[in-house]
């Protein structure tokens, strides 16, 4: 099954298609936002505090007179960075750990899996708070923390899948022909365990954005003047008695992104299934 | 002895919608089973033999659609028109089914004695204690050694052959008139298969139970059945008594199947007479006879018109334009047709 077929199937699923487009737009925005924002998102204008939406300020202004639309656009950068970085860490550390664990077994398996067990034993949000606390509060450290929180589940998933594929007759056939561990992992195991991991990654992408927002909301992530949807909510939260709608925009942005990630994951799961049937 | 009709399948035609179009796993199939008779339904994968059995059992009803003319009469009731509740009654009390792998049909967390007894209680409204006694009798009847101790065993503690015996005991629990056995010995070793086939024979002789034996193994058919139905691509291509079918197969497919099995008795052939090609895709069945793509006797006529199942003078019913002569020569429809009635 080639990349092309999977992509074609994915695009045939309507929800996955829109989710994919939505996320792509976010990615592009996260790069070009500084060049297209109508106002400097940090510029305060105390003459225009908490304006309602208008032609000049599409989503209105906040308590310091900053343009909310511009801030929302700038916030995509933190969200996308958090999402991507937070799945890159488990993909680069957790998945190889899982594959080695599953394929080699024995001592390697014991050591890796005890580490994983250790991480899992700590509640995710506590762990993330702990890591950011230890590394210092910043958006980057929050992302590292999220990545570490996700690593165990990817390692376990990869290990379980590897155990299954390892004993397939096609792997045995390769062994008979003299294939070594490297060849088997690269040619047989990774292509066959990739689909569930890709699906997991797309679910986690949205979850990571959510965790980033939570950490920022708690003051452990992005720090002002850095803009993130999480700290936008936090600021809006303090104004909730005066201006409730300010909280709606970043909230909606988070919800839509999380949903898109989930729909994309569902679509990928269907598209990567060798027994794919168009619904 | 007059033969009493037990089950009559008439013009059974099923549809299953698939993403690429509708397929017809069973296409205008009619046959009957008499009381106390063992009828074998032979076919390879995709022949429609399993869908036929599921239709009789009323299983998987949501996925299968029937043509309105289809009917399955059992004791003067059309099973296809029954409501699920009525059908459930028939399933427990009159028709039972045994499967290829009994591990899937037995509940792994209950001892076998309890499972048999509970199914008796459900259908016969007797006390659990009495049901347990009946369960013990049944286990003895199907030849489980040390049955009393085995009552408390869990399915995983039994061997494949023993599990199949338990399944049969469970099928017998409600004195069925018909047992549908779907590849009952395929998963078993040959010495165990011989035991189970023996048991099925014994049940038919002693209890007069009719059996619809679904299998791909011609040896099992020759050993067990009274009458044989051969299916290919959703249609019955040949039907006859077991002697007629094996002695004088009329359809090229029937003969091809027999020639495909290596001979155990007598000298080894250098090459097997394999049927060439593969079963056609159910979405792209040939226009005329379904077997035309693999038949070495086929003519232009075969690829244009589909033959129907007709009675042949030799006794078999066969669906072929050119039923084979004794020596495997192609027959002549013209001569045969006049004597068809």
């Amino acid at each position, binding site marked *: *099954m080639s990349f092309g077929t999977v992509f074609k199937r994915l695009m045939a699923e309507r929800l996955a298609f829109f989710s994919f487009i939505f996320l792509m737009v976010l990615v592009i925005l996260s790069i070009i936002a500084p060049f297209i924002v109508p106002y400097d998102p940090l510029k305060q204008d105390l003459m225009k505090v908490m304006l309602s939406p208008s032609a000049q300020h599409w989503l209105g202004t906040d308590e310091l007179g900053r343009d909310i639309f511009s801030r929302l656009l700038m916030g995509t950068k933190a969200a996308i960075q958090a999402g991507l970085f937070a799945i890159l860490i488990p993909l680069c550390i957790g998945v190889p750990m899982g594959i080695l664990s599953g394929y080699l077994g024995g001592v390697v398996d014991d050591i890796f899996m005890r580490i994983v067990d250790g991480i899992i034993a700590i509640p995710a949000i506590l762990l993330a708070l702990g890591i950011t606390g230890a590394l210092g509060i910043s958006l980057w450290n929050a992302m590292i923390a999220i990545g570490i929180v996700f690593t165990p589940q990817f390692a376990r998933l990869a290990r379980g899948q590897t155990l299954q594929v390892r004993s*397939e*007759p*096609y792997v*045995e*056939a*390769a*062994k*008979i*022909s*003299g*294939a070594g561990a490297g*060849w088997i992992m690269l*040619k047989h195991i990774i*292509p*066959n365990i990739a689909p569930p991991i890709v699906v997991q990654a797309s679910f986690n992408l949205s979850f990571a954005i959510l965790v980033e927002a939570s950490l920022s909301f708690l003051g452990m992530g992005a720090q002002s003047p850095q803009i993130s949807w999480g700290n936008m909510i936090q600021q809006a939260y303090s104004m909730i008695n005066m201006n409730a709608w300010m909280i709606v925009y970043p909230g909606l942005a988070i919800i839509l992104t999380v949903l898109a990630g989930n729909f994309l994951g569902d679509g990928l799961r269907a598209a990567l299934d*060798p027994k794919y049937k168009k619904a | 002895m007059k033969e009493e009709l037990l089950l009559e399948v008439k013009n059974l035609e099923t549809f299953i919608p698939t993403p690429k179009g509708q397929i017809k796993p069973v296409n205008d199939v009619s046959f009957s089973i008499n009381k106390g008779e063992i009828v074998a339904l032979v076919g*390879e*994968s995709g022949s429609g033999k399993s869908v036929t059995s599921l239709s009789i059992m009323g299983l998987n009803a949501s996925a299968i659609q029937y043509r309105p003319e289809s009917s399955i009469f059992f004791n003067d009731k059309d099973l296809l028109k029954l409501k699920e509740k009525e059908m459930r009654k028939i399933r427990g009390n009159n028709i039972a089914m045994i499967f290829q792998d009994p591990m899937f049909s037995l509940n792994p967390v209950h001892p076998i004695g309890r499972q048999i007894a509970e199914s008796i209680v459900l259908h016969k409204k007797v006390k659990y204690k009495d049901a347990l006694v009946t369960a013990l009798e049944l286990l003895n009847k199907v030849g489980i*050694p040390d049955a009393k101790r085995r009552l408390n065993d869990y399915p995983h503690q039994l*061997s*494949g*052959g*023993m599990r199949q015996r338990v399944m049969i005991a469970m099928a017998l629990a409600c004195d069925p008139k018909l047992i549908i056995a779907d590849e009952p010995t395929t998963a078993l*070793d*040959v*010495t*165990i*298969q*011989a*035991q189970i086939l*023996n048991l099925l024979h014994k049940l038919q002789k002693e209890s007069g139970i009719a059996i619809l034996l679904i299998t*791909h*193994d*011609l*040896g*099992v058919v*020759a*050993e*067990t*059945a009274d009458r044989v139905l051969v299916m290919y691509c959703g249609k019955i291509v040949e039907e006859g008594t077991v002697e007629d079918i*094996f002695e004088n197969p009329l359809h090229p497919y029937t003969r*091809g*199947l*027999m*020639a*495909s*099995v*290596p*001979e*155990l*008795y007598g000298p080894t*052939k250098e*090459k*097997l*007479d*394999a*049927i060439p090609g*593969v*079963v056609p895709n159910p979405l792209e069945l040939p226009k005329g006879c379904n077997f035309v793509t693999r038949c070495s006797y086929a003519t232009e006529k075969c690829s244009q018109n589909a033959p129907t199942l007709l009675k042949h003078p030799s006794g078999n019913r066969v669906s072929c334009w050119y039923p084979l002569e004794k020596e495997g020569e192609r027959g002549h429809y013209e001569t045969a047709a006049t004597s068809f009635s």
Partner: protein
Amino acid sequence: MKQQPLVSLKEIKKHFPVGSGLFGKKDQFVKAVDGVSLDIYPGETVGLVGESGCGKSTTGRMVVGLTNPTGGEIYFEGKKLREYKAKKTLGKNLQMIFQDPYSSLNPRMTVADIIAEPLVLHKVGTAKERRKRVDELLERVGLASYHGSRYPLEFSGGQRQRLGIARALALQPKLIVCDEPVSALDVSIQAQILNLLKEIQEDMGLSYLFIAHGIQAVKHISDKIAVMYLGKIIEYTNKEELFANPRHPYTKALLSAVPHPNPKMRNRERIILKGDLPSPANPPAGCSFHTRCPVAMEQCKSIDPNLLPTSEQSLTACLLFEEKVAN
């Protein structure tokens, strides 16, 4: 002058530890294979029959090096298997065809990549030459070169088995272990595959170790047949002899249990064995068949018979014959 066997098994054993006693001591073993000796000569087919759990598949897996024996030695062309430093040398000569045509092909590789894999691993030829070789192989097993760009999922069971055969042939091995190669296939397809295997043998002169529980298929393809029961060979002889004159009571029962394709033979005298196969974790003392044997004697419960010559070509492990041989 006697030819050198291609592959020779000498008293090979495979004991799997099960459960562990106190302090992690392994105290019980499943004797999957328990002292099997067998010679396979160039160009011949040795059939290995027996019921599930008799150790026939494990024997085959040891021959291709998928698992190592816990006792005994396997020789390839006179040299111990484990002394071949590079596993690749063996891969070139010993190949395997698997039972399940669905799981034996990587669903994420194209057919051409699957068949070329052994060539790539052994660095045979350039990419272009390999592609040509793949085309030849596809044609050899009755498929066409355009099939190379497809994925296994697009093929039927019989076609997949052909692909598995093409892969096994890629390096022109001297022996192919066929582990139940037809038992997952439809009857009409089985015959096609058996014919193909025979043709290939005639063309290439290779040897087969043909493992199956279906005696008809084994009879069709084999020159010699070994019957296994609970990890041991209990009878080993050439094909004609085995069917004309089976000696071991188990062989007799096995042959008699095969359904006869003539309904008129239904009421023939048959040996129906009582009971089930004993567990290989706890095999009976003495002759392992004595619990089911219709002609068991008192001494069978304590004496384990040896595999001894009972005629010029035959070896049988049964006390009935041991005495005759001794006399």
